[in-house]
């Protein structure tokens, strides 16, 4: 159980004051995440990629998908007391437009219809439009907070939003902590917490220690990926901590360089996809915390591959070996590594530094692929160096994770990756056929027929085995038993139901 006495003053203040202390690997101001506590957006999306209104009570889309009308909530106040209305929403969108390439490109006009109605007209169809609006790129900001005031080209100075907590510059200590206080005039009703304390803890091990020594209430919430080692979760649970996990639909995958041997051959790609026992990996190395990925991206996404056979890449090393044999890769000199035309099956796996679990995965891959006669050379590089290598096509395999809105071209993630105009993934799988399919699917405003088109697209893509899906990246949040009502969701920082119980931790 939880041991130790609680002489810490922070504990005392927490129990009387009800301040939720969360550990974060980044300083409050440099992390995007922290801003979600302060700012809100017009719309939000759930995990599967369905959008709904937020500060816009509801919205309408025209049939051609080019005109969006937002009906704004009334009675929403900014932290400085000013009203949120169509005018400020317009400025906010203009500000976002200045900071987001896609919005800048596609948005033609933003009009204030009345106090609470806003119309946005796009010049070209932008499938990711709502997605962008729901992301941190398009927060609703207060006009007065811009410098010079009201100028969307200006600099955002304070942190004045409409969220449940407000940021007070005076409490902020660079690289140490930031305190967010309850906003009493919050439109959704004041939070049950008195505040949130954002504490900088650099090291993942230290974070777990901090939780166990009751210096923070919650860890793992503030990072893009979980920083809590999976092996520690069981232990934390056994000690009585709540561990909230959820799949966000991010899959870690190995991307193949399909423009050069050996991965220009679909058989080789397929063989590798069959050769790795992902179930075993997840069960052992990841303590069964997460799920092995069976298809390229999460099937439960709105636009996900829900019609693709689950067993498409089922682990079968014999089949894998046979496919390699058929592809002409045989071990002719008996050194355990296959070769073809004098070239050995040695593959360069590029790992961008900081990619979660990459060390574990690459060691496992090495040992699995060795069994079918392929040798992996791991090269861990600082992420921008790795990215440069990727752009130059200087790799065979590249480990990375998909974004959580995977199926939207022009946005982020996988749908875009295989589109031939993409400069970032110039060496991924591309074909004219696929381009045509993507074009057809994403210019289709009609939802049903779009889904059909997308299903054929997924079937085609899986047959091509453009990448090796590994496992579903988990979002992990561990908290004190004192914290109740927290759920991992699309908005990690939704604190509306969170309470801090009065509880003596030194039981």
């Amino acid at each position: 159980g939880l041991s130790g006495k609680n002489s810490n003053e922070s504990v005392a203040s927490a129990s009387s004051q009800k301040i939720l202390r969360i550990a974060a690997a980044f300083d409050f101001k440099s992390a995007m995440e922290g801003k979600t506590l302060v700012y809100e957006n017009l719309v939000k999306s759930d995990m599967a990629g369905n959008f709904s209104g937020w500060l816009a009570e509801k919205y309408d889309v025209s049939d051609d998908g080019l005109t969006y009308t937002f009906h704004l909530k009334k009675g929403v106040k900014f932290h400085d007391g000013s009203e949120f209305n169509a005018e400020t929403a317009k400025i906010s969108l203009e500000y976002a437009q200045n900071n987001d390439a896609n919005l800048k490109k596609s948005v033609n006009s933003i009009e204030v219809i009345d106090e609470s109605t806003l119309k946005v007209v796009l010049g070209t169809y932008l499938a990711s439009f709502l997605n962008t609006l729901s992301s941190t790129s398009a927060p609703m900001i207060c006009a007065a907070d811009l410098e010079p005031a009201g100028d969307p080209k200006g600099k955002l100075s304070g942190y004045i939003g409409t969220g449940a907590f407000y940021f007070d510059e005076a409490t902020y200590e660079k690289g140490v902590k930031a305190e967010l206080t309850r906003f009493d005039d919050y439109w959704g009703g004041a939070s049950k917490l008195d505040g949130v304390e954002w504490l900088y803890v650099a090291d993942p091990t230290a974070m777990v220690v901090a939780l166990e020594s009751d210096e923070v209430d919650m860890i793992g919430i503030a990072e893009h990926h979980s920083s809590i080692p999976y092996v520690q979760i069981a232990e934390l649970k056994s000690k009585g901590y709540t561990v909230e996990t959820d799949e966000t639909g991010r899959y870690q995958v190995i991307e193949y360089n399909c423009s050069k041997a050996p991965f220009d051959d679909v058989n080789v790609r397929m063989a590798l996809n069959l050769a790795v026992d992902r179930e075993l990996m997840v069960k052992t190395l990841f303590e069964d915390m997460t799920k092995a990925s069976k298809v390229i991206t999460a099937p439960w996404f709105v636009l996900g591959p829900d019609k693709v056979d689950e067993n498409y890449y089922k682990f079968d090393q014999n089949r894998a070996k046979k496919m390699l044999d058929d592809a002409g890769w045989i071990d002719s000199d008996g050194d355990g590594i296959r070769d073809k035309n004098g070239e050995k099956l040695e593959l360069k796996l590029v790992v961008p530094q900081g990619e979660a679990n990459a060390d574990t995965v690459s060691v496992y891959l090495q040992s699995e692929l060795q069994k079918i006669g392929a040798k992996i050379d791991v090269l861990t590089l600082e992420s921008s160096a790795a990215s440069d290598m990727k752009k130059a096509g200087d790799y065979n395999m590249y480990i990375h994770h998909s974004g959580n809105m995977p199926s939207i071209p022009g946005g982020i993630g996988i749908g875009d990756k295989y589109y031939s105009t993409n400069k970032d993934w110039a060496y991924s799988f591309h074909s004219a056929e696929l381009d045509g399919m993507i074009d057809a699917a994403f210019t289709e405003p009609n939802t049903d027929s779009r889904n059909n088109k997308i299903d054929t697209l997924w079937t085609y893509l899986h047959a091509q085995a453009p990448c090796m899906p590994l496992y579903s990246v988990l979002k992990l949040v561990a908290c004190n038993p004192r914290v109740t009502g927290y759920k991992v969701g699309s908005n990690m920082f939704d604190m509306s139901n969170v309470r801090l119980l009065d509880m003596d931790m030194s039981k």
Partner: protein
Amino acid sequence: MEKMIFRRLFLGIFIMIIASLLSFVLLYLAPGNPAENILRQRTGEDPSYEEIELFLQQKDLDVPLLTQTSEWLYMALRFDFGESINTSEPVMDEFITRFKATLQLTLITLAFSIPLAFFIGVRSAANNGGTFDHVSRFFTLLAMSIPEFWLGLMLMIVFSKTLNWLPSFGYGSYLNLIMPVATLVVGYTATLSRVIRSSMLENLSQDFITTAKGNGLSQHVILIKYALRNSLGPIVTAIGSQFGHLLAGVVVVETVFSWPGIGKFLIDAVYLRDFPVIQGFVLLIAMMFVVINLITDILYTYIDPRIRYERR
């Protein structure tokens, strides 16, 4: 003397400029750009081409690096190091905040290390070959052999997790200082006490020690006024260089204990390719080194009259 200081300061400016130009060259040769790294850190996704370009444009980074640097240098000469690309804060502000934290850690570490090291070093030199010397030799060598990161983690496990006595992270209260300081003190005391011991021993075998004994001076006076006094030169140099290295950042300790110091911040900046921060920090750190070296040299001349007069 003034001439020496003047000359050294002149050289110092030269060194600072070269050091920051060197960092520029290294960055220039390095792959990656700030936009990509910073955007990736913010969103956790690989940014697209368009996003990167927009970011570069916004931050005025779409001009050639050479122009950027010459502009930077021009501004730097007026002590304006620009803004961090990542945080949009003035580099000088960032530096001062981090420097305060680092300086605090450094000074307190040295405040413990130096007296302790003097105690151990002088006693073991005086007791050369005796029990104290053996025991202290064993422990100082052992202390030098413990990796900082390992010690730090162990302290944290014991004092934060198991005993729940000390905070495992944070900055501000004296409680926060205990473990990082302890981690650093172990290694620094050991190293310094070895320096003190060996330079004491060197002097203790000199003829003037025999003279002092021949004059019937007491052990205490001989040890302090004769041996230690003459050993101070190398000791001050050692302290100076340790001070410099501590100031330049103890990345490991800063990482383990989430200490908001220069080192970790600079490393992060390197990863983000936050050019103004890197160049500014390198220049300021180089300046610290120059100043510290100058101070040790000046102290040295006060300690050692031989140098004082040779410099005339």
